[in-house]
């Protein structure tokens, strides 16, 4: 069974998100609660403000899975709906073909931190 993580809408009005940190490594066996990645959402395009309304989020896993492929690096801007990663119950499951469902995740608002791409490269 193939599970996918696509960028879905976290904040109304967002058109995409910037990957800030990637915590998980392809091939890892991940447990519920494992950190996958941190991302930032900049609503500047949706709200005219004098400073960029940026929010930071962490995506964590809510089920056990093997991370088979992760296609992002810090700094990459992802459009809504783009595939971020593929998961499978075991390391042997094939990763070609359509996903059976979305992987179960939780999203948490987090503080900016020193390891984030934003701040060190912008």
């Amino acid at each position: 069974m193939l599970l996918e993580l696509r960028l879905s809408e976290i904040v109304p009005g967002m058109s995409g998100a910037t990957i800030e940190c990637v915590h998980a490594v392809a091939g890892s066996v991940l447990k519920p609660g494992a950190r996958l990645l941190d991302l930032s959402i900049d609503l500047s395009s949706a709200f005219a403000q004098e400073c960029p309304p940026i929010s930071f989020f962490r995506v964590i896993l809510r089920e056990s899975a093997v991370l088979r492929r992760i296609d992002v690096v810090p700094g990459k801007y992802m459009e809504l709906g783009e595939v971020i990663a593929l998961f499978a119950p075991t390391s042997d499951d094939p990763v070609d073909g359509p996903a059976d469902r979305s992987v179960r995740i939780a999203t948490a608002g987090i503080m900016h931190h020193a390891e984030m791409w934003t701040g060190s490269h912008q």
Partner: protein
Amino acid sequence: MKVPLTLGPLSAEGHTILRSGVRWLCNDGYVCRPNEVIGYCNLSLERSGSRTAGAGPFAEEMEIQVGFASRRPGRIRFAAGVALGGYLDIREAKAWDAATVIAEIETDDASAHDGVSEDVRLLMLAGRRMTALADVHSGLLPGWLGRSRAWWGSGDEVPLTLLSLGICDATSVVLGDQTAFLELFADCPHALHVVFHPDHPVAPAAPVLLDQLQRTPSQFKAIAQEVRGYMASSAASPTAEDWMFVGVLLATLGRNPLLDSYSIFTPSGLQTIPPAQAVLLSLNAEPQTLLKHRKLGYRLHVMRHHQAAAGPATRAWMAQEFEVVTLSLEDIRRDYESLIDAISSQTGAKVIVLNRMSTSGYEDISNYAPFDSPMSNTLANIGSKELNLILDEIAETRELYIVDVDTIAAALGGRNHLPDGIHQSGLMQAHLRRELLHILDGLRGMD
């Protein structure tokens, strides 16, 4: 009833007040509310009689304007010939004449008398440019201002001064949609003087404000000398962006807004009023990390999106000459307490703080086990709750007034009115403004 609206008296001893033509902020026939600014003109103070040595009042403030508001509701009809167009509505060429009729108001207000003129309320506006080069002619308080302020120029009561040193969440509440204090004063008919400082290039975090309050002229001289020395020997050649950034940085670090006194002019003349009696801060301005100068020890916080304006030499300076200091919640508590105590002892001003939104509809955490302790270091909403609690605890031992953004946002609905936790909707700004004015009314009553 039709009531002619006249400019009314305005004076500044030793000066002739000149004005431009009127620029209207509404259409002819607009139905206005009391205290709503409907038009404005530019002012200048020209010394009259014998010239005295030294800078006169408002010498630093190259933008002086006056907004006009009716004291009662009604339909505005513009007087002919007061809007002159072009440069004549920008340049100050006419002497202020109290009897000049600028408009007429058609009102049902029973206290008005048909045909009997009354003076407009004058909202005085003054702006100090970040650089004298920021010579912009359009609109209210135009250009790039390092300080802007407003006060009702009617009545002789000495106004209470509010100094706004917050970031975005305070800016919008204080300045309003036209960045000219109009909404705040429309809701406040009392004697009030509001001073606004922007959050760039130096963000007003408590430790930065504390250092600024306590900085001596010789310490500032050392800061300026070190900056000049670094730029002169920097491996990265300073660019135009570097010179502009450090120029504005030094201009900001060399000032002490908490101790500023102010010139104002009113119908009865010039007054000098003391430093602010109330200071507005944003809890959102407190960072998790800030910069501390390795040799001189002063602390600096430049928000990330403002750092982008710095050139390569300035970025190298910040990277090499400063250490990054991580602030715990207890550090923030200590800095706030120290700042409140220092302000209290130096000017007696009361501190008002906008607290933080501490919930979000955008997260779906069902289990907190994956997050390391202390969770306030990672999870934004837990960090905000703990900081809000710290404010409440400080308020138990010190005179601190809290504008409860957290509660107001939750009551209105954060998703629609505070989507990113900092930038509010117009409705929420109006609620926060009322809350702020309520606190100021309480302070006024304590005088």
